[in-house]
């Protein structure tokens, strides 16, 4: 919806220029750190530790990226770990929240609202407080340093939101469509797959998108659970780059790996921006 924040006609021109100037200043301020970091990551190796630092690289080079490709186990190992964990977290979130949302939206489940509240209530518990018992449980189950273990933790974070969103998505589907499927005598599972899921696709994309971003970026759980180097996700690998091999920070490697860690999130967000913002508002303004 558009609101014209109205200016008085006489002042309108000056007002318009002022707004334009402020917008451009905000854009520049917000982009500056990202642009500086990207440019710094493209410096030749010799310039990465120069004091004082130069704003612009003297020439562009991929040396820092080549270096992080071989850093510790090679950055692609950690990118792959992060991607596997995020993929599993997405699968767990969808596999649980789609049937759960369907049941909550369309079945007279006994004790429905209480059960729904219990699922949502897990959002009230900060997962940071549950890391001690979870670490002990995962140690027993052999789920530390395992992508599945971390994916389960990330699914715990996203599940209440996912169930809430899927319930709303299924509730929004008109009853008439469902009745037509029922007349055909289709089984419940068939109805879910062929009638409900295609119509609830935007909700499912939103669930997957949030699971991806949350999992890709999550830090303290990965720090605690992924306790061997070969299992590190990208954020944990970053801590290794800062502490460095001999205590000195390798700035070029740091900038390149920070950019590698940021790019997938920016790409996914820019591609699916609508889903992200509507999901965010649905989650916060229930």
């Amino acid at each position, binding site marked *: 919806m558009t609101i014209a924040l109205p200016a008085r006609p006489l002042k309108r021109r000056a007002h318009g220029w002022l707004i334009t100037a402020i917008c451009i200043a905000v854009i520049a301020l917000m982009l500056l750190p990202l642009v500086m*970091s990207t440019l710094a990551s493209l410096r030749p190796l010799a310039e990465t530790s120069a004091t004082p630092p130069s704003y612009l690289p003297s020439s562009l080079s991929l040396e820092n990226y080549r270096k992080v490709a071989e850093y510790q186990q090679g950055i692609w190992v950690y990118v792959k770990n992060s991607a596997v964990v995020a993929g599993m977290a997405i699968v767990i979130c969808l596999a649980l929240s789609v049937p759960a949302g369907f*049941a909550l939206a369309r079945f007279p489940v006994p004790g429905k609202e209480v059960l729904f509240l219990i699922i949502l209530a897990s959002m009230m518990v900060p997962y940071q407080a549950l890391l001690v018992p979870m670490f002990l449980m995962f140690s027993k189950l052999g789920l530390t340093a395992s992508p599945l273990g971390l994916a389960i933790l990330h699914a715990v974070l996203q599940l209440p939101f996912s169930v809430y969103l899927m319930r709303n998505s299924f509730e929004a589907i008109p009853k008439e469509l469902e009745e037509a499927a029922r007349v055909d005598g289709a089984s*419940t599972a068939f109805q879910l797959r062929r009638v409900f899921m295609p119509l609830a696709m935007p909700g499912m994309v939103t669930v997957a998108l949030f699971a991806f971003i949350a999992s890709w970026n999550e830090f303290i759980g990965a720090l605690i659970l992924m306790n061997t180097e070969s299992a590190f996700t990208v954020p944990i690998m970053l801590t290794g780059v800062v502490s460095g091999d001999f205590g000195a920070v390798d700035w070029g490697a740091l900038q390149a790996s920070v950019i590698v860690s940021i790019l997938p999130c*920016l790409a996914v967000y820019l591609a699916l921006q609508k889903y992200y913002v509507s999901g965010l508002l649905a989650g916060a303004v229930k």
Partner: protein
Amino acid sequence: MKIKRNGWVGLAWLSPTLLFVSVFVLWPMVHLVWLSFTSTSLLGGGEWVGFKNYTTAFNDPKFWAAFRFTLLYTVILTPILMGLGFALALLVSPNTPLRRVTRTVTFLPVVIGLASSSLLWFWLFDQQVGLFNRLLVDLNILSQPLVWFRKVDTAMIAVIISVTWKVVGFGMILIMAGIQSIPSDLFEAARIDGASLWLRVRRIILPLALRSILMATVLSVIGSMLAFDQFYLMTGGGPRGKTFTSVYWIYQNSFVRFDLGYGAALSVILMLVIMAMTALQLTLQSRGKA
């Protein structure tokens, strides 16, 4: 035709989620409370010690220092985030192309990881190679590059600058949604009356977007109270352990000193504080609805 579905079939569809929540949320909560009454160590062993961990916590000056530091961080950061978030929301609410771009760009850092942004700023703040330091010197704001993380005050300022950049777009989007849901005829009427921007903000926007602002505030406060990544990566708790936050202190005791029992007691305290805040948030939400 009215559809009758079998509730028990529905329960079967719901059961995997219920099982998952029971195993990975409810059971750990119970286990956490139990652990907090034991002297369990990460190295194994441990016995029932009653309330000892809790009395230790209440007499532990470092725990209180970490709690106070987290509160201070929250008290300083929240007004900055909400003030800027509100101003930005005012700026980007109308759907003109430039304002949309401003909205998207301001929101970009929200989707990147806190670890990534913390390390990005860790570099920018570095006294030798950091461009932010160089920029401040070139603009004559600083006479020479500052070692930001050597003192508590400047470390706090540095973390707050970086976090503000990272999350200001979050509050902006929530408050913007509140502003956009205000009926446009109210603005029309205000325009005809020739009301100034200040008057429109005070009389129309603030009261009608209040619920969104409160919501953004509570979510932001909860996020700040759980701060960990930014301090772990930028200050490492230093200088001299003065920038430990509550979560950092729990991590330190549980996974660095291996004292899981004590860590569990601290976690229970944190959990109660956060749950009280979430309860406040839910109350605000349901009041707003009525």
